[in-house]
């Protein structure tokens, strides 16, 4: 039996079957207003969305954003009106609409431009709630296609449709005292939210491991070591990340090309850290690894954690159409670790049963 776990920021759930939305639904459809849209580095943007209210969320949870171009969205009751055909409409269909000129272009938005058709999933980078319910969500994304390009071009005051909070977030097993937050590239944002989640839990120790290919692909604010007059930018593993420092957590930065922080992979830094801690303390019983990033990086991190006998929770990404547990497309192979290697795996849905899984339960 796995130990009792607690949610870092307590999302409300109910076992009653819910057949219609209610004010207490733990997730739902919302319209958010863009408050800020900030370019963080070459490809990454931070979109700050404001909502009058939004359910509580857990670090690791995500939202699905409609990234179709709002310029082409017809109003709900848009009616192009009758066209002037060379044959008249039947008497029974005349109605009271004025006869309009033929329209050269259909009103359907999909004809006007190639659009991002399906919603795009984004993990939350932060979630701030005011006492009156007013909420701000931070989405940090990298521009990789039509949908994210549209988000990058959004202006303050524009609105987006979002669904969330979706999925199951990170959990903190009892007895944990130190958490390693390992984020790679576009997998860094949920780690920033998790840092906040840790700070609000009983865990007081945390350390970030932030990796990217190059310096300009790091969507975080780099500051120097405390009391240093200038940010240190060359080969210094003590570089701090403002988003972690806010909660008192140090961070190690790695880049593949050495353009900032340590040269190499984030897993090497994690491995060195765990080894040193093991030597110092003799054991790593109270340590856990939380990880999000490219699949190869998460696999490597899980291997490092396994070598040191440390539990590791990973936040997976799979192509998904709905994010709500209906389309069955985002499957991963799951085999509970206590059943052993010979047991048969089964598929689990990344969107509702994940995206966070214990790496020891995954067949990958």
């Amino acid at each position: 039996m796995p130990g009792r776990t607690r949610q870092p920021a307590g999302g409300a759930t109910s076992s009653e079957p819910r057949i219609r939305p209610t004010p207490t639904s733990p997730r739902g459809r919302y319209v958010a207003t863009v408050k800020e849209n900030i370019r963080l580095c070459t490809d990454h943007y931070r979109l700050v969305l404001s909502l009058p209210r939004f359910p509580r969320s857990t670090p690791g949870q995500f939202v699905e954003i409609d990234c179709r171009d709002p310029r082409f969205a017809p109003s709900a009751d848009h009616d192009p009106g009758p066209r002037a055909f060379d044959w008249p409409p039947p008497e029974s269909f005349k109605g009271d609409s004025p006869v309009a000129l033929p329209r050269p272009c259909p009103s359907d938005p999909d004809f006007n431009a190639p659009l991002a058709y399906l919603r795009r999933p984004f993990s939350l980078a932060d979630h701030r709630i005011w006492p009156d319910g007013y909420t701000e969500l931070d989405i940090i994304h990298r521009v990789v296609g039509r949908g994210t390009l549209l988000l990058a071009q959004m202006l303050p005051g524009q609105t987006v449709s979002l669904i969330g909070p979706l999925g199951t977030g990170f959990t903190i097993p009892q007895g944990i005292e130190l958490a390693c937050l390992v984020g790679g590239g576009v997998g860094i944002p949920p780690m920033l939210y998790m840092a906040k989640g840790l700070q609000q839990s009983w865990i007081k120790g945390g350390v970030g491991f932030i990796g990217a290919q190059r310096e300009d692909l790091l969507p975080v604010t780099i500051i120097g070591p405390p009391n240093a007059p200038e940010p240190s930018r060359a080969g210094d593993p003590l570089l701090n990340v403002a988003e972690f420092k806010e909660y008192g957590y140090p961070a190690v930065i790695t880049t593949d090309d050495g353009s900032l922080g340590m040269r190499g992979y984030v897993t090497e830094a994690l491995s060195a850290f765990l080894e040193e801690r093991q030597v110092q303390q003799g054991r790593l019983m109270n340590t856990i690894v939380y990880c999000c990033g490219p699949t190869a990086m998460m696999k490597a991190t899980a291997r490092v954690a396994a070598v040191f006998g440390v539990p590791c929770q990973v936040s997976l990404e799979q192509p998904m159409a709905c994010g709500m547990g209906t389309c069955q497309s985002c499957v991963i192979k799951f085999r509970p670790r206590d059943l052993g290697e010979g047991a048969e795996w089964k598929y689990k849905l990344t969107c509702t049963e994940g995206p966070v899984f214990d790496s020891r339960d995954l067949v990958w």
Partner: protein
Amino acid sequence: MPTREFHAPSLAVSIGKLDLQNPLMTASGTCGYANEYGDFTDLTRLGAFVTKAISKTPRKGNEAYRIVETRAGMLNAIGLANIGLDAFLKDKIPILKEMGVPVIVNVPGWTTDDYVDVSARLNDEPVVGGIELNVSCPNVKSGLSFGTDPVRLFELVSAVKKVTTRAELIVKLSPNVADVAVTAKAAVDAGATALSLVNTFTAMSIDINNARPMLANGTGGLSGPAIKPIALFMTHRVYTEVAKKHNIPIIGMGGIQRWQDGVEFLLAGATGLAVGTALFLDPNIPLQILEGLRNYLARKNKTDIRQIIGSLQAPAPHD
């Protein structure tokens, strides 16, 4: 525009003996087993709820990746992953009862016995108002063969008809045929009480950098606005060639995303309107379509939605 008194038009339709409060339904495979969308839309306001395909035994389905987005649509190759009939009856039927709308269960199969066994057990569940025979899944081995061969289809539907004594027997037609009216005729002759069309179109998407198909299954089924004009044509063809003269209702589907799409399908001859892929964008779309339909009917001075079903006035073909 002159003002006039507003009379809310009647939106009620019937699929055989099933009375629906409105024509809007979910399309199988896009809405889960029961209340997965309960946090996002009021499921009790649907005309009917159509479940994911329920097979005799649980199925894992295909390897990932199972979907890929395409222009104005998507390809899927889920492979009929589902929890199986026993778990469905035990865990999902109670929730469906609570929803209180007519329930149609989609039934896939690999042999005639598969279809007959599952249909017979569902026929015993009072909450199941209709059985939709899935003879047209393009993503499993031999999934298409019943749906594309009119002789085999006739035999299958005849066999299932014997056990569906209470529930409506709906046959979901495949668009992957030369003439959909031929398979529609075979289904109706064998005793189908309603037809639903269309299922997805077999299609492909290729990753040019790795020279591999995007989907692990190789091919998938195309859905979304991209297929709407073809689905509309097929609905109209089946209506004029088969359904109208046999008085068989059609559940139209294929790219329905806005109320205008729904009106098009109604005019072409559909009685029911199933929303599929668009649910992934917004599970509330059926209720938005409902609102648009109501306004359209009022503008056209219609008091009853049935006045416009199949009322398309096609011009005489040119020489």
